[in-house]
Each structure stands twice: as C-alpha cells, then as structure tokens.
C-alpha cells in the first residue's frame, strides 16, 4: 500500500490546514488507577484542522486518554494544554467554560434518558437560556446534519444504537465546537451503521474542518476516514483517488499505555514496529 497525501493533488478540497498552533498538547502524561500506569509518558499534539485517529486494542487506555483531553480525568504526571491553557491542575470550576468549547461523543452516546432528543441536543443552549425559537432552529439544523430530523420529539429509549450515536454527534456539534472528541463512535454497531457514522465524521471534518481526536479499535474506520472525502454536491462521502489520503488525518497508536506510533497512514503501513504490524495484519 503506497499512500500519498491528497495535498499533492492540485485543487483537492482536502488540502492541509494552515498551522495556527496546536489545540491540544500532551507532554509526558501518565495516569494510574490503583495499579500499574494506564497511560505512561504520553506526548502528542492535535493541530488546527487536524483529525487524529487513536488506534489500539480494547483496554489499552484510549478512552482514558480522551477523558484527559477535556479534564474529565486528571493526570498523575505531565502537562496537558487545551486551547493553550494548562488544564493539568485546573480547578473543575474553571474547566467548565473550556469544556463548552469542545464537543464530545461518548462510547454509547450517553444521552440523557429523561430528556427528548430536542432537549438532549439543545442541552448546552438550554443552560445558556437561549430563546426557544432559536433552540428549535439550531436543533433542527444539527439533526438535519446527522439526517435525523424526524427524531426531534422522541426519547433516547426509542432510538436504535446507531441513531443514538448520531444524536450524540448532533449534540456535540450544536455549538460549533473548536475541538471534537469521539470515543469509539462505531463500537458495537453493524458495518452499515458504522459506515454511516464515519460518513458523518468525514462530513464534519471536510465541511467545518474542526480539529478532532477519534478513538477506535476498528482499522476499517480509520482507513475509511483517511481514504474518503465528503462531496457536497452528492451529499455523501466519496473515495479519494487510489493512493491518495487525507493529509489532515493522522494516526496515533497505543500499546499497554505507551504511545508507540505517531504519524500518517503512509508511515503507519510502512512501520516496522512488531505490534503495529500485528495490529494491521
């Protein structure tokens, strides 16, 4: 497999985004829970417009890493910067305003059972006392983006697993965040629904260019993200020409809490690391 970044193709919509300083920086971050470190000495960054795919088998600390990014967990050692601010020891009260600038999609959606889809998607807007008319309009826009407008008045219990993830994506997008965090958005879904979710993520990436960090153990999702772009005229994602990949989509790989790979798809498939080769096999 010989991958070339799409930037080499003139006129491609997937040109690299100008560097305006990283949105997230991890410097030698470690965390443990009553035992050996779950994450050990992790360093990486997420640049403006960049989509980073965090790969690794189950139980390797991927979700923990994602929760460290927006301060849901605190590191034992090291430094984490979010939007240029050190959040490693920031009090919870000060973290809330920073978190409102991020959008997070949880593993199972984490929708509020007792609220309708409308109220779930509008949760932040309701807290900010945005007028009802504007809330309705923005919720409908967000639901239209994930093609679930008809679920406006439904409760999460009446939605399928895939629909819940899509509503969770709508909730994460409604305030146009400056960073998106996806925690295994396709975990436990059938292949068709998984592709629908990845298509939404590609659409978000190519329409809004929001920097994002996506956690997955599914290699096919990672390759889909890298090998496709959203085509606005067709309203769906299309494959990039053979051998071309999205230059803003790069990879990280964890093995037993350590970061063993940080680079492009091209570098990933050429890696000589034994674990990477086994994972790709």
């Amino acid at each position: 497999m010989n991958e070339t970044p799409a930037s080499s193709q003139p006129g491609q919509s997937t040109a690299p985004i100008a560097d305006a300083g990283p949105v997230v920086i991890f410097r030698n971050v470690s965390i443990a829970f009553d035992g050996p470190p779950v994450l050990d000495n992790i360093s990486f960054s997420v640049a403006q417009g960049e989509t980073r795919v965090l790969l690794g088998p189950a139980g390797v600390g991927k979700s923990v890493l994602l929760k460290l990014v927006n301060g849901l967990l605190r590191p034992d050692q090291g430094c984490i910067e979010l939007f240029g601010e050190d959040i490693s020891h920031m009090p919870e009260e000060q973290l809330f305003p920073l978190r409102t600038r991020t959008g997070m999609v949880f593993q199972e959606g984490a929708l509020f059972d007792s609220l309708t889809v409308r109220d779930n998607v509008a949760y932040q807007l309701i807290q900010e006392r945005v007028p009802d008319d504007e809330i309705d309009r923005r919720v409908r826009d967000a639901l239209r983006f994930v093609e679930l407008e008809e679920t406006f008045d439904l409760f999460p219990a009446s939605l399928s697993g895939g629909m819940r993830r899509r509503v969770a994506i709508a909730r994460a997008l409604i305030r146009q965040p400056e960073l998106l965090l996806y925690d295994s958005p396709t975990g436990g879904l059938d292949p068709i629904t998984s592709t629908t979710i990845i298509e939404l993520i590609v659409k978000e990436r190519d329409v809004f260019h929001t920097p994002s960090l996506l956690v997955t153990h599914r290699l096919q999702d990672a390759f889909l993200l890298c090998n496709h772009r959203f085509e606005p005229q067709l309203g769906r994602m299309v494959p990039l020409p053979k051998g071309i990949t999205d230059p803003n989509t790069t990879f990280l790989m964890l093995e037993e809490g350590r970061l063993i790979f940080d680079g492009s798809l091209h570098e990933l498939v050429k890696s000589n690391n034994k674990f990477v080769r086994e994972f790709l096999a």
Partner: protein
Amino acid sequence: MAIATIEKTAKNLVLTVQDYSLFAWRAFTNLYHPPIYWPEFLVQADIIGVGSLSIVVLSGLSTGGVLALQSAATLSAFGATAVTGQFVSLTMIRELGPVLTGVMVSGRNASSMASELGSMVVTEQIDAMRALGVDPMRKLVTPRIFSSIFTLFFLTIVADACGIAGGGLVTVFMNHQNGTQYFDMAWEHLRYPDIIQGLVKPLFFGYILSSIGCFYGMRTSGGTEGVGRSTIEAVVWASVLIIFVDFLLTQVLLTLLSML
C-alpha cells in the same frame, strides 16, 4: 493477613467519611454561588415531597393508632387511659414523627437518588454533563439536598398530624374512649420546646438522607451490579445515620431547650 484486612477496611472507612464530608460540604455551599438551578428545586420538591405524601400519611396514621392501642393497654393498669392523647401527641411530635418520616422518605428517596445518579454514572451521562460544561453537583445534587430538607420539614408536620389523628380514631372507635378528652390532652400538654424539637430534627434528617443517597449514587462503579450495591448502601447508611443522629440531637436539644 487479618491485620492487613482490618487496616484496609479502616482506611477505606476513613476515606469514605472524608469523601462524604467534602461532598456534603460542597453540595451545601453550592447554594451560595451561581449558577443555581431553581427549576430543579421545584421538580425535586414535587418528586420527594408530593411523591412521599401517601407513605407518610399511611405510616403516620398506623403509628399513631398503634401507639394509642399499646399505651391504652398499659395505662389502663394504672387507671390513666385519659392521658393517651398526651402520650400519643408527645411521642409523635418529639420522636416518631421526625424519625419515621426520615426513615420512610429515605427508603423511598435515598434509594431512588442513589439508583438514578448511579445509572447516570455508569452510562457516562454524568461525564457527558461535565463535558457539556454543566456541574452535576450543582445541577443534580444541590437541588435534591435542599428540596429534601424543605419537604421533610412539612412531611413531618403531616406525619405528626396523621399520627395524632390515627391515635384519635383508635381511641374513639376501638378503645371506646372519649374523643374530646383525647384531643384536649393531646393539645393541652404540648409545649413549644416539644414542637421545636420535632421540627428541628427533620432539617437534619432531610440533609442526611439526600446527601447519603446522592453520595453513593455519584461514586457508583461496576455497572448495573454497582448501581444495586449503591442503592442498598444508601438506604442502609441513611437509615442508620438518621437513627444515630436522632439520639445525638435529642440529647443536645433536651439540654438546650431545658435552658429556655
């Protein structure tokens, strides 16, 4: 081996008490800094207060009735059945009203708080709330605590009234005694210190049952099994603490009120 187990248990206990103290203090002080979610207070007051009304009325009526039956049987040996009203009203207002209401409401609401918040923890809804920039302590815990304190105060008054009414019904229809005499005795021997004692206790019990319920709910781990465990621990500890604190409060209040 045995010493290590004892040491671990003791450390866990101390750590839990420390965590609970910090949790309860933070939940309490949240009321004095914005944002305050006032609509949540009303919703919780409805769930906790109105929702618990039926069990409080029924338990109050039955307890008052039992008190009248038992006391009349004992007092008749001394020819003092006339003081049944006094006995029932003082016992209900000073002790049984607050304690029974506290225990009944904790059975219903501490368990529901622990299971509701516990389910939210294990399904990552609490993390989602934090990720959306909303403090779950302010949004979920503080309203539950203050609504419990507020509603338990009035539920206790309802339980007291029902207990005295229940005692009256038993006195008139089962013990065939004079109803006017019963209610006269119930009213005449009531003093302000008795009422103060009976109305201060529910403020503490409301705080205990809700903070314990929320505390165990918010520290749930281990999936659905963990939710069940949290629910049990919340009800057990809330009930035990209510009875223990009642003992301490009674001692303190008797001392303080005797000085008046």
